[in-house]
């Protein structure tokens, strides 16, 4: 089995509009790739299509997780396979505590008849909260209800640490974060980095990539990957802007 996330000629639409127009990408485990590009060119759509957001329709192509095409799978099946999206806009669910939510999400990964033990849950939680500099009382609060933008993003990373995915997709996690929150989020992600973790870091700016240094950088313009390079590509975008890559798409 190839331990990689592979996207093959992916086309997707929302309504009548084609957003993804043939994306090709390979991210082996052990690597984090940045996805950059101007807004409105398909970065977030790619993230949502991978995790099975029903708002989008895939018209062509495949998404292979460790060799297995996941496009026919339900969103929860994909998650249990180890795919995790840190949402750009996490939802608020008053009435569901974070603790209960995390426990049920962990439970969903267990075999029939097997329970999440208190030690397992609490041990992981303690360590995750420490990494994120969060007080334990946070988990008694309702999921994202009344949270600031920064707290919601931190909560996404908490879920990531608890659920230990194989592939993470971070959808503009840096947007709206001050530098302290950004560092905490980066620390959470970096604590998971290693040979078993692969993923995509979707961002518009270089800022986050100062803290989470990517192995590769891909630029998406008009629904296609138009350029791939090393971390220096992100720096170039930061200093030169996006105008030159837009020309690549029309070339």
């Amino acid at each position, binding site marked *: 089995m190839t331990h990689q996330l592979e996207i093959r000629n992916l086309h997707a639409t929302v309504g009548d509009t084609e957003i993804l127009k043939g994306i090709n990408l390979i991210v082996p485990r052990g690597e984090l790739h940045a996805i950059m590009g101007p807004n409105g060119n398909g970065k977030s759509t790619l993230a949502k299509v991978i995790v099975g957001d029903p708002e989008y329709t895939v018209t062509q192509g495949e998404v292979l997780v460790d060799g297995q095409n996941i496009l026919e799978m339900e969103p929860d099946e994909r998650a249990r396979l180890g795919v995790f999206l840190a949402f750009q806009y996490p939802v608020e669910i008053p009435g569901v505590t974070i603790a209960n939510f995390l426990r049920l999400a962990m439970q*969903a990964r267990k075999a029939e008849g097997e329970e999440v033990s208190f030690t397992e849950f609490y041990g992981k939680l303690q360590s995750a909260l420490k990494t994120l500099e969060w007080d334990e009382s946070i988990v008694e609060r309702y999921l994202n209800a009344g949270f600031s933008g920064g707290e919601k993003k931190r909560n996404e990373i908490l879920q990531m640490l608890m659920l230990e995915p194989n592939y993470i997709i971070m959808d503009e996690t840096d947007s709206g974060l001050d530098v302290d929150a950004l560092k905490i989020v980066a620390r959470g992600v970096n604590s998971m980095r290693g040979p078993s973790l692969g993923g995509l870091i979707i961002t518009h700016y270089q800022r986050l990539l100062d803290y989470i240094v990517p192995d590769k950088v891909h630029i998406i313009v008009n629904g296609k990957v138009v350029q791939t390079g090393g971390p220096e590509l992100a720096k170039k975008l930061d200093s030169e802007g996006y105008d030159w890559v837009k020309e690549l798409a029309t070339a």
Partner: protein
Amino acid sequence: MTKFNDQLAQVQGPEWLTAKRKESLELFTALDVPQENVEAWKYTRVDVDFDALRPHGKRDVVSDVSALPQSVQDRLTGTDVGAFLVLDGPDVVYRTELPAELKAKGVIFTDLKTAVEQHADKVQQYLYSVVPAEVPDDTTIAAPGTTPSKSPDPSEGKFSALAAALWTNGAFVYVPRGVEVELPLGSFRVMSDAGTYTATRTLVVAEENAQVTFIDEQDSEALPGTYAIGAVELVVKDAARVRYVSIQNWGEGVTHIQRQRGDVGRDATLNSLVVTMGGTLSRTEMQSYLRGQGSNSEMLALYFANRDQHFDHYTLQHHAAPNAYSDLLYKGVNNDASVGVFSGMIKVDLGAQKTDAYQKHRTLMLSSDARNFSVPQLEINANDVRCSHGSTTSPVDQEALFFLRSRGIAREVAEKMLVTAFLEDVLGRVPLKSVVKYIEGIIARKVGAA
């Protein structure tokens, strides 16, 4: 109706009470069951053959908890009420005593029958004062020359007349001026005789600046063709604070019809929570009559109807004095082929200036076979008020569902989580830990079975 006359002879009482009962029975006999043309009963039909109804059998008083039905025992182990009555059908079968220090302060907690004997003056003063036999006349006071509001239909008093005439027992709470009762008091009502009816009555009196919480729970096994008719009177004197919780969890086959009404004095507060989970047909009325200036009423409810359950919630926020505040939030879930009815009325009398009255009804529909009828109404006769009402009906939030599923939680589990969360939102406003835990348990069982 000769049968009811026989039953009238069975329920004992002093002369004033017997006269009242007789008069109420005459009213009952004269009235029809409310029909479709009665606005307040438009969506709910009660199909009952009164001639075929017999009273619920009497049950022996037990001296030990272990002799009570298992479900009651289970419930009692998890409660933190300071004192309680257990009624099986018509009468009390078990009770605990009020702590001595509360007795010493003049607090009375007993059954209504005993109270009639031992505290005659108090009972006679307040019984039927809030929920009389007839439908309370909540016609609003309008400016001269304007059309007054429609008066209630007399048939709306059909079941309250029955409860007034033939009540067998219930709880009586009296809290003297300035006394605060910390732990809740409660009655646990069960039934165990199918094809019968019970009529019960609860009277809670909080004198000036007193405080008390009363929990009124109903629970039974499935009982086909069984009727529970109830009346609850809450007298909230000036600056007093009363919290009233009713939890209806009857078994399948039970028809529950209960009028609950508070009379709220100056600067007084009535917090109510209505929970409807059981029975096959349920009609629960919660009425706040805001008599005093600056009075305050919070009216909360949650319900979950499935299968063929029909839940009707009728509410009234009647502002009769200026500067009063009422806030209503009813949240319900309808699954399968169930029916939900909400008729919510806000009435503001002439002169009730600076009224703040809010009303929100939220329904979560889980099935395309389920139906919901929501009828919010306003009648405002004052010109300087803030009133709002609104009703929404929606399926489970798809975005939230997707979020939960994207964390690996299966659709079915995620839907249950969202249904629970929808109702939990109401419980977040109720500062009664033990009761909230109990309600959460009922919700979990019901959501699990959905």
